[in-house]
């Protein structure tokens, strides 16, 4: 098995005259936690959507587990899990029903679904809440449930788009403990975040600005290279200099 689970070459996506993703090259290694950072509108969500087969690239190629995301989107979808910014949960269904539904959509059989559901409820600390209506859950719990729905079919790779937005520091730590546990089981995690301390937990990070990747590497190496104490400093430094350079 090859080492890289994602490899993007010259990946580009335009919306009319606007270039959201501008010829980016990167790869994600099997089993790593890959952090995807950038300002709002830098192109992070667009990139994730291309990788998940939700948007077609307008240029370049991208392979996920050796499959072309454009031409083999259906096959790619079987391998991945996706958790969107908006926690795509059905508010009028219970915790359990949400899990069952997503399990069904991925074609899990009854026995497997039952096993997986119970395992996840335990792992996500949602036991005893099976019958709760999703609408009534606090944000931190919804977020955990959304993660559960995204991984119910045991994907090889999960894409998490700002999974911890607006979540308090305690819940965020809990959530990251779960991400680490998943990575320890060999699942590749691709995550975007605006919390720079979370970026420190990643094996490697890439920083995007205006559709381009302006830095990529392990957080410690990048901090060393640009002589910054934290990822937050690194982020500000890189974005400032990137924008300085692009000004006429």
């Amino acid at each position, binding site marked *: 098995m090859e080492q890289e689970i994602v490899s993007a070459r010259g990946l580009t996506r335009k919306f009319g005259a606007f270039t959201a993703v501008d010829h980016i090259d990167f790869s994600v290694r099997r089993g790593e936690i890959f952090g995807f950072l950038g300002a709002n509108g830098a192109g992070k969500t667009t990139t994730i959507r291309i990788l998940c087969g*939700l*948007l*077609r690239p307008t240029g370049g190629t991208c392979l996920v587990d050796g499959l072309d995301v454009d031409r083999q989107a259906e096959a790619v979808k079987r391998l991945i899990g*996706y958790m*969107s910014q908006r926690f795509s949960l059905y508010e009028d269904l219970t915790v359990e029903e949400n899990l069952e*539904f997503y399990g*069904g*959509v991925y074609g899990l*059989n009854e026995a497997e679904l039952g096993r997986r559901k119970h395992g996840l409820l335990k792992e996500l600390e949602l036991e005893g809440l099976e019958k709760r209506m999703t609408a009534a859950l606090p944000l931190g719990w919804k977020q955990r449930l959304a993660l559960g729905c995204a991984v119910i079919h045991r994907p090889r790779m999960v894409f998490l788009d700002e999974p911890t937005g607006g979540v308090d520091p305690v819940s965020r730590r809990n959530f990251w403990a779960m991400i680490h546990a998943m990575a320890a089981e060999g699942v590749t995690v691709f995550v975007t975040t605006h919390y720079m301390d979370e970026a420190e937990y990643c094996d490697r990070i890439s920083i995007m600005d205006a559709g381009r990747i302006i830095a990529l590497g392990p957080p410690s190496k990048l901090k060393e290279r640009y002589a910054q104490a934290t990822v937050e400093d690194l982020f500000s430094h890189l974005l400032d200099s990137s924008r300085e350079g692009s000004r006429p």
Partner: protein
Amino acid sequence: MRSKIASLALKEYRHIMRDKRSLATVFVLPIAMILLYGYAINLDVKDLELAVVDRARSPESRLLVEKMEASGYFTAAAHPPTLADAEMLVYSRRVRGILVIPEGFSRDLRSRADRAAVQLLLDGSDSNTAGIAGNYFEMILAEVGAQMGRSTEHGAPAAPFEVRPRVIYNPELKSVYFIVPGLAAVLLMLVCAVMTSMTIAREKETGTLEQILTSPIKPYQILIGKVLPYLVIAFLVCAIIVAFAHLWFGVPVRGSLLLLAAVTPAYLFCALSLGIAISASVRTQQVAVSLAMLTTMLPSVMLSGFIFRVGSMPLPLRLISKVIPATYYLKIIRGIMLKGVGWEHVWQHCAVLVGMGLLILLIGARKFSTRLD
């Protein structure tokens, strides 16, 4: 193994059951509409005022006017001397029509001529009333003619008026029999299309569709999974409407209920597909609902033959009526309930509906992008 379609259908079923208010609306609204329309759209003719221009002034002509008034459908509101005077009365809307009895009326009757002519002029600005009144008048003429035929010494067996009754079904001439089954067709179309038009658009709004689209599910699976539970609901709505029509308004069920139940899903499928196809191609629930209302309500009411006879429409409208599902279901439901027709008379309409439903669903699946762009 629970299939993907079943998962979707189960989820959709849960959405429906959780939203009690919408569910109640789906059942209560049609009944309210039937009550409203059943009573409000009353096409029955009663005491229609006529100006009588009696040029014959004979016992026979007086008998005719008498019989006419005794029927309760017409009253002789005026006796103007000339046709011109009578026409003035119509223009000023004091009367709704003119009965002209020509001078030779009695002579023609007695001379055993093939026909004795009377002329009934009706205000065509209300074409429905006119049509129905015309039918009534023919009945009265037939009655009068039969009486006179018996009273003539020659004992001619044939009625002296040539009356070709046009009312084949609904001989009681009760418009509610006609309206209520028609309403069933219109309402089912509306309810089905509006219900399903919201489902996919809602998931686009809440962002849950994005999640489903990252799974290996196919568009047709989503569409069918979503249509199935609504098919059950719509069928129940239909049953309630038919029961209501029969028990409340006394609309007869001359044909087989089983046959009606067997072919109705074809129509429901067609209507639900339309809703889901709309939902798949627009972004918001609001647009979806408006579009569903627009594409179902007006055409089904105006062009399907629900109120206005398709036969008397200009050709372009007649062609349009051919692509309106309600046109076919109207024939089916009126046929089975009022005429008591059997499978041999409905299978063709049924086939058209299934075909249309499949075509619409196919277009919907084509339109439904598994991507966000």
